[in-house]
């Protein structure tokens, strides 16, 4: 993966929350079609980083950021239209958060907001997205039921599917399996391995084993700093930094 192109470039990104630093001058790149795992203890800035990438951080007026983030070599604050950015950079949250509308409407929500009115096109998008998230067979007969009736694991796959419906290029996962049982977790991980063929994935997780299972490369964050980023294999076997070694071997965090 040496010559893979750089999808996202982060240059000296610093973020403060209410003038407390949350990220300290972080610089690295995310490659196209990789799964980048981000690990680190609580308050290390993982989620803050993720929410900066699709500018969901804009919702919080206490957050201030400096530095540059380029996606497709375009600055997310200066060159991207924020609504287009959020369609290109989808997000799956820690808690499954379907909208309180039907399964179909959950998936059609994004495309509809984007101006798609054509019924057939919407149906096709819904079916394709549900299939890609391995949910189609379970829900194809009850698309008009409320999404709130689905189980937690199904809801989380629905959230992945609704992200896919927007035809994104990057998908951010914020601890997507933290509330799920092992079987649901396995299904999500399978989906992620499949998705990486077409998308670039960033996975924030507290579960280092999960990061080892699915990531191509892993970044270790600590106290808002990027300690180390390398091939997953190396991070978990021969990390360069003592702190990384301590964390992955479970000595703290």
């Amino acid at each position, binding site marked *: 993966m040496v010559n893979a192109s750089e999808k996202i470039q982060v240059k000296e990104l610093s973020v403060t929350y209410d003038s407390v630093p949350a990220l300290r001058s972080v610089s690295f790149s995310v490659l196209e079609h990789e799964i980048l795992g981000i690990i680190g203890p609580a308050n290390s800035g993982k989620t803050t980083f993720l929410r900066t990438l699709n500018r969901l951080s804009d*919702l919080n*007026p206490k957050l201030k950021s400096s530095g540059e983030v380029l996606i497709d070599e375009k600055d997310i604050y200066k060159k991207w239209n924020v609504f287009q950015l959020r369609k290109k950079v989808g997000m799956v*949250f820690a808690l499954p958060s379907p*909208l309180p*509308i039907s399964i179909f409407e959950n998936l059609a*929500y994004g495309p509809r907001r984007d101006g798609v009115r054509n019924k057939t096109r919407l149906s096709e998008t819904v079916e394709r997205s549900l299939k890609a998230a391995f949910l189609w067979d379970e829900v194809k007969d009850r698309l*008009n039921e409320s999404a709130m009736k689905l189980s937690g694991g199904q809801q989380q796959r629905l959230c992945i599917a609704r*992200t896919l419906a927007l035809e994104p290029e990057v998908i951010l996962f914020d601890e997507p399996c933290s509330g799920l049982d092992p079987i649901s977790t396995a299904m999500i991980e399978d989906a992620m391995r499949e998705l990486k063929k077409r998308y670039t994935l960033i996975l924030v997780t507290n579960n280092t084993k999960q990061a080892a299972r699915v990531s191509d490369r892993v970044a270790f964050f600590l106290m808002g700093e990027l300690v180390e980023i390398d091939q997953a294999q190396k991070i978990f076997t021969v990390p360069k930094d003592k702190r990384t070694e301590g964390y992955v071997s479970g000595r703290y965090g």
Partner: protein
Amino acid sequence: MRKYYEFVVEGLIFASGIASIIFVLLIFIFLLKEGLMVFRDVGLFDFLFGKFWYPISEPPRLGILPLILGSLWVTVGATIISVPLGIACAIFIGEIAPGWLREILKAGVELLAAIPSIVLGFIGLVTLVPLVKKFFGLPTGLTAIAGSIMLAFMAMPTIVSIMEDALNAVPKGYREGSIAMGATKWQTIHRIVLPSASSGIIAAVMLGIGRVIGETMAVMMITGNAAVIPHTFFQPVRTMTATIAAEMGETVQGSEHYFALFAIGIVLFAITFLVNLLADLSLHRKPVRA
């Protein structure tokens, strides 16, 4: 000793708890007992739909249709004004205003609720009534529309504060999920937040209307109090509440007039009970949506 103490405290608390129910029951029984007496002399239909309210003529004519319509016109007018304003205000406070402005506005709305209705009434009388007269070119400003505008101000705080609670109860995940899919703020409010909060919004509107129907002093001061069937908003009207307040003092206890005023009380009670019931039902309705 300790055992007695427990017993006494428990007894007192039980008595206070049960007292409120007993009072409501007693009031209700008294209201029914006095009010139903009027139907010895007037039929229910003639009472509700009689067009003339001449309680001191001989024999008295006790038709409360003008009063019901008076209350209705004023309430409908106040609803038309206060509901869109109240909903817009709650959306602004709950969803759009930055933190500092939100606090100021919330305090302002609460202050509006704290103004005694009689004060609003006389402010209305000296400022709003002449304005209505001039603006619409009427012979008098003491009209249903003046009452509606004034009552809209009284309903606003109820609508805004209850609706704002309803908006607050919408989980943050809904908003973030919507925004993360590229929706704008307004699309999120319109498509997700408002539908999720709909039962609370209906309850807010209902309780606001309940407030308007029951209001007495302010309407008595500024609606002109003519017990005739109103045909437009620009006529003087008399509401049911104002009738009771104005006439109870000068009626002979035990007369037909006296009983008729109690019967108006029953009608009012029935209306406000219904409105509150509807509000309660929509507030506790389970959010089942397809």
